């Protein structure tokens, strides 16, 4: 009976302590920052350049309209 009581109290106490194993919020935040920096940092430095490069290629429609007018001018000059 006494051993039972001891086992009971020991498991009870250890269960109480087990519940106390907390989530290390500060450490998780630190780790998250590190991971996010690694994933975002490299491309973030190139972000303005990449967006500017993509802008001219996205508008190829307007230059196609321009060459039509210069072809008329050399003919009309002489």
């Amino acid at each position: 009976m006494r051993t039972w009581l001891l086992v009971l109290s020991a498991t009870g106490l250890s269960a109480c302590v087990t519940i106390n194993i907390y989530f290390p919020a500060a450490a998780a935040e630190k780790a998250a920052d590190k991971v996010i920096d690694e994933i975002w940092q490299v491309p973030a430095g190139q972000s303005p350049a990449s967006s500017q490069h993509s802008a001219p290629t996205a508008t190829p429609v307007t230059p196609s309209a321009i060459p039509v007018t210069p072809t008329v001018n050399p003919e009309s000059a002489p």
Partner: protein
Amino acid sequence: MMRLLHNCSRLLQLFLRQGYHTLKVGVFLSCLAMLFEALPVYAAADLDVNTPAVAAVKASMQSRHLQLLPHYQSGAVGLTADGFVAVKEAGLVPLSQRSALAVLVKDENTDRARLYQGMAAANGHPEWEGEIQRTFGQRWIDKAQAGWFVQRDGQWVRK
């Protein structure tokens, strides 16, 4: 109920009879238990983020970020409060690229889920996945660049 009371009184009697000794052993056992239980807590004070699985997911996300970046900037894709990404406004993307965008977002979210799960597992606490995901959700949004869309209280907000 009566049996419970009876058991309780029996325990009390037993405790009173051998109170000192039980107390002594109990305190000793609890100290021992605390010592063993407390050790992993302090060992996990720094979260490990460098297991091969986590590193692979990070590399995959890193390379995908170049493709996602223009969409973050345009507002086609936003960061959700729960640590994922979502198509916020598909209309900003040409029709021909929308299915590619959907795949991009789906792949990113798969990797993100894998990242949270991998980090929890890497630290010996798979049950921390939810907490890690919540932490990331907040940090992605905090670290998002100006102009990106993020979710706050269920609403899309431009940073």
